């Protein structure tokens, strides 16, 4: 009796629920207030974006060698073009630049190896990165070994110097910060009070003060004729400063691990370092990723402060270039370029940390 078994063909969804019009209606114009807000936002966006694009692309000058090649109606990217080598390598001698390229190429390969999960031999690569690479990098960048001519640190600059400061600061601050965090939670009075005093002192002074002390006061206390390199002074200052911040981020993570974890590990007969290294820290570090990356990003941007002690980091070399009498008046272009480079680096770090969080996600996330 049942004949009516023909299946009705699937039909597309009604036009008012799909497609761009429906999306607009649902998300931007779902009511009078939202419509007004959306229109206002669109107006603001357009009135900002149009002149920016006009300035940065349409009216901009791209080719040339001097300021005469710029019409001054739009951006003068000729300035960036002419100086790009200096912005990246600072005053590093032109024919020695390959050493910087090799160093950072090597570093990129090592980091990529550690960052991509599929590649093998992680442990050895990690050891190479942390133990061998710093010496190789120093030998390459500074020279004086293997027949390489010495390039003194006052010629380092630009993006290269920014990266050196940031990478050394990050790599050194993480282990020191971990030790300080463990020390602060320790029950041993000397270890604990040292950690507390160290952290509270370095967190209590602004980085700019630390750098000023390192560059203005320190030379007067040292014996005559003894000069600590200014880059080394800045590196030590930044590392100590960041370690204190890192310690507090890590302590926050450690406190989030239930006490039972450590007690269970102790019940299995593990000593202090095994309990920390195998049970507590792996769980804690995973949860601390946003905090650690936050500290890294702020460290990366804080490196610009070395400008005040006469080191030309990326921003410093841009400012120095702005004072060349042949290129006066291109500060907007210079700062826009510096901002873009900083944004690219910080955004990449942020994206990688999000990826890492997803990868290590094992159910703790709420």
């Amino acid at each position, binding site marked *: 009796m049942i004949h009516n078994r023909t299946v009705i063909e699937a039909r597309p969804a009604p036009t008012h629920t799909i497609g761009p019009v429906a999306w607009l209606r649902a998300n931007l114009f779902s009511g009078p207030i939202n419509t007004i807000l959306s229109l206002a936002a669109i107006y603001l966006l357009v009135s900002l974006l149009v002149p920016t694009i006009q300035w940065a692309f349409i009216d901009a000058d791209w080719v040339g060698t001097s300021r005469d090649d710029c019409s001054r109606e739009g951006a003068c990217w000729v300035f960036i073009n002419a100086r790009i080598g*200096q912005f990246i390598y600072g005053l590093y001698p*032109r024919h020695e630049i390959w050493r910087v390229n090799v160093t950072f190429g090597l570093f990129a390969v090592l980091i990529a190896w550690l960052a991509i999960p599929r590649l093998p031999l992680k442990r050895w690569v990690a050891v190479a990165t942390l133990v061998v690479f710093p010496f190789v990098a120093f030998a390459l960048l500074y020279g004086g070994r293997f027949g390489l001519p010495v390039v003194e640190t006052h010629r380092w600059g630009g993006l290269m110097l920014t990266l050196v400061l940031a990478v050394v600061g990050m790599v050194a601050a993480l282990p020191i910060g971990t030790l300080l965090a463990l020390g602060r939670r320790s029950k041993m009075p000397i270890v604990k009070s040292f950690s507390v005093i160290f952290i509270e002192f370095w967190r209590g002074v602004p980085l700019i003060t630390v750098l*000023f002390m390192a560059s*203005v006061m320190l030379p007067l206390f040292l014996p005559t004729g003894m000069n600590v390199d200014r880059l080394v002074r800045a590196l030590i200052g930044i590392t100590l400063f960041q370690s204190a911040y890192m310690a507090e981020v890590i302590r926050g993570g450690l406190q989030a691990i239930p006490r039972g974890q450590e007690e269970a590990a102790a019940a299995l007969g593990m000593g202090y370092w095994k309990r920390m290294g195998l049970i507590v820290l792996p769980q804690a570090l995973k949860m601390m990723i946003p905090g650690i990356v936050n500290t890294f990003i702020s460290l990366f941007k804080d490196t610009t402060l070395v400008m005040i002690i*006469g080191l030309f980091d990326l921003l410093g070399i841009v400012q120095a270039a702005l004072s*060349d*009498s042949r290129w*006066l008046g291109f500060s907007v272009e210079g700062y826009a370029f510096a901002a873009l480079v900083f944004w690219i680096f910080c955004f990449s770090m942020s994206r990688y940390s999000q990826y890492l969080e997803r990868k290590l996600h094992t159910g703790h996330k709420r």
Partner: protein
Amino acid sequence: MSHKNNKFALLTAATGLALATTAAAQAATLEDTRAQGVVQCGVSDGLPGFSSPNDQGEWQGIDVDVCRAVAAAVFGDSEAVRYVPLNAVERFTALQSGEVDVLSRNTTWTTTRDTTLGLNFTGVTFYDGIGFLVNKDLGLSSAKELDGAAICVQAGTTTELNVADYFRANGMQFDPIVFDTSEQTVGGFQAGRCDVLTSDTSQLAALRIQLENPDSAVVLPEVISKEPLGPVVRQGDDQWFNIVKWSLFAMLNAEEMGISSDNVDDMLSSDNPDIARLLGQDGNYGEAMGLEADWAYNIISQVGNYGQVFDRNVGMDSPLQIERGINELWTNGGIHYAPPVR
């Protein structure tokens, strides 16, 4: 130079003075410099025409050329310099602690700096002072006509105080419009917020270039304060003091005698006894300073005479187009006057 951080600079420098005097007592800078192979020279971390890195990454400017002249005198090689970029705060510490041996960083010669800081100024490379930039359309020819003007000035500099003094002294009123940075000051002037832009004359030229139409503005002839800028060395080493002092004098004397980097080789055979003495053809005046007889020849052939240095970096051959004015030689109506080589 009028700098925001002047007071702080003095303070920090004075704090370290007790320690610095021990450092200052070190003599034999020349031997140390010879051993190092380079002259350690402190320069500004970026000031148009005075010191800034060019497209090739080489330092250039009038302050930089003083460093090069000293290197040419000591080593016969004007490239044997280690430039240390310094900001206004750390410049004196760097000199006192021996990080640099010559400070050639647009530093104004004042009593305090010359005496209590334990430093010695060796001469004047540039006579600077506060000047006024006005819109050409106003048709002004003198600062005395500025009564009631709105003046754009950078906050926290001594410029602000000097301008107030000048207007009070001349019984005039003015309306200060204060900006934080020099770029904002230019912007304010351009937007018509003020009739007059004031700063050191060396900087006015650089500010003028940043206007959309640089020809629309002129610099008034009056200079209302004394800012003699010169190289500085530590007290306690007279030999080194003499070397830096006479490196500058050699360039001034060369200009006065008409010797330039182009004709210095021809001048070697000159009959003029002044020229022969300066270039080391008659007697050895370098010996008393611990230098070779051709010390001045090396300076002139590699760096040039004072006029060349001025024109190349801040004068008519540079984008800054600063008039020689008071920086002319005494023979041309200026006040640069170098003692004779004898």
